[in-house]
């Protein structure tokens, strides 16, 4: 998937006021990778995904899906798209809906029926095939939306907030589905607010803020660039004497039954361990702490807000 100089300006029909939803976005998602697309509400994530799915027209710029320009209808032949908070025809049953969309994506009648049955069971809805969609819970609808995005075995899957509305079991199932797609060689791009999931699943991550691409790197590159620290857990001791000169490079937190020393200077680790042994304090664990994606995301968002305090955001 390639995006070159993509911009979107929304115009109000009445006041003719303009709002920039996306600003000169350049992006390449490689075949077979799982790509996370992050940003706060109104950053331009949904705008980007909708342009790629053919629901919005870009104001400027171009994009290609699997080598085909998005203006051409063929670009969506191998695309699976899950919109944010998907809505369906509530008079249909789950298998009927899946068969309908599978056939719209090019499957024959027999293939569509088979794929619909298979995916209906695969997303954990197989027990109630005759239930009409108006009686589905939010989580069930989200699962059905995922099945609809995958039912025709697409080569590229774009998911807008796929974990939204799901309980922990549902989130685990979605993670499994995304990993399964990666194993099949399918390219997956998804937006999410649930950063631990993104960290767990994605090969690369883009952070978009105020319609502009802020960061683009592998998860490892992003989080390893963050300041590191080392956490030393020790058995609770009433008195712990550390050299007076260390005051700026450690913090001490007492929990029930243990204490946690957090070192911000790695060079102090060996002297600290020696000191603890000398004072006969039981060391339970030494854990290097790296910055999380969440911390990085919050820092990037703060930077952008500082640089453009009056930037207008759109949904």
């Amino acid at each position, binding site marked *: 998937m390639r995006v070159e100089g993509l911009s979107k300006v929304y115009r109000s029909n009445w006041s003719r006021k303009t709002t920039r939803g996306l600003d000169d976005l350049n992006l390449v998602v490689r075949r077979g990778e799982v790509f996370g697309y992050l940003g706060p509400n109104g950053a331009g994530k949904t705008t980007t995904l909708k342009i790629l799915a053919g*629901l919005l027209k870009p104001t400027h710029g171009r994009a290609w899906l699997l080598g085909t320009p998005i203006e051409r209808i063929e670009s969506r032949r191998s695309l699976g*798209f899950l919109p944010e908070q*998907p*809505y369906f*025809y509530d008079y*249909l049953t789950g298998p009927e809906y899946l068969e309908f969309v599978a056939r719209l994506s*090019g499957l024959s009648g027999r293939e569509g029926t088979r794929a619909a049955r298979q995916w209906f069971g695969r997303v954990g809805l197989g027990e109630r095939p005759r239930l009409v969609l108006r009686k589905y819970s939010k989580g069930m609808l989200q699962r059905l*939306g995922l099945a609809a995005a995958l039912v025709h075995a697409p080569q590229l899957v774009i998911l807008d907030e796929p974990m939204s509305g799901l309980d922990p079991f549902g989130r685990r199932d979605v993670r499994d589905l995304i990993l399964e797609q990666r194993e099949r060689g399918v390219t997956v791009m998804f937006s999410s607010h649930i950063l631990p999931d993104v960290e767990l699943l994605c090969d690369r991550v883009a952070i978009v803020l105020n319609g502009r691409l802020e960061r683009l790197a592998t998860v490892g590159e992003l989080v390893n660039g963050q300041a590191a620290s080392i956490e030393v857990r020790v058995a609770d001791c009433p008195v712990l004497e550390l050299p007076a000169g260390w005051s700026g490079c450690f913090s001490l937190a007492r929990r029930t039954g243990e204490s946690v020393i957090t070192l911000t200077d790695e060079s102090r680790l060996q002297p600290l361990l020696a000191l603890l042994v000398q004072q006969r304090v039981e060391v339970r664990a030494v854990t290097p702490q790296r910055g999380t994606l969440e911390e990085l995301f919050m820092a990037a968002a703060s930077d952008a807000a500082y640089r453009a305090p009056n930037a207008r955001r759109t949904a």
Partner: protein
Amino acid sequence: MNAVLIAQNTFREAIRDRVLAGMVVAGFVLLAFTQIAGPLAMGEGVRLTVDLGLSSITFLGLLVVLLVGTSLVAKEIERRTIFNLLSRPVPRSVYLLGKWAGLSASLWFVAGALGAALWAMLALLGHPGYAAAILEAVYLQGLELTLVTALAVLFSAISTPVLSALYTAGLFLAGQWCDDLREFALKAPGSLRTLLQVVADVLPNLPLFNMRTLAASGEVTSPAHLGLATAYALLYCGCVLALGAAALESRDFR
């Protein structure tokens, strides 16, 4: 192929939402009412039955168009169900064509069921000779409703359901009077005449599909009339749907 799938789904929606069943039941009630009013017609009971029976088809069909057709696309945009269709390899023109075809098929179903009921009632009353006249009249009414559906779908793609219903009802009424407008244009001076003639030509020529008076006396129309009406309806629907597709093509679905 995708237009057929969307049409099938639209037809299924109309069936499951019980709109069609409601209209067919209402039609049967209206037909039964003609038998109560028959004795008041002073010997013209059959004529009254045919006329009222055929009128009820147009009235109920128009009601379906105004209730369902005018929100056909707008409802999908509002409920965002359209996202799941247009993010697939489905051109917007094909989507619109499918929606129109599906609702038109539903209206043909209503018209066919009520026409058959009307014929069966006349046969039971000892007048089986009206079959051809009723068949032709119902066919023309089906074409008329198909044309009005195309207008409703066009407005539904560019406006709100309430405004779409107003525009569609307005054009339906104006279309019924387009012959009168054409006659009036002949008496109007200069540029007003040209303007009125253009308006009369652009409005749907709905009197072309009205065969109620002829059918009430058991007569049939010429094959040339049927052919002309069919060609006119298809051409008019084609133009209206092309306009609707062009409008939908430029729309953003936020």
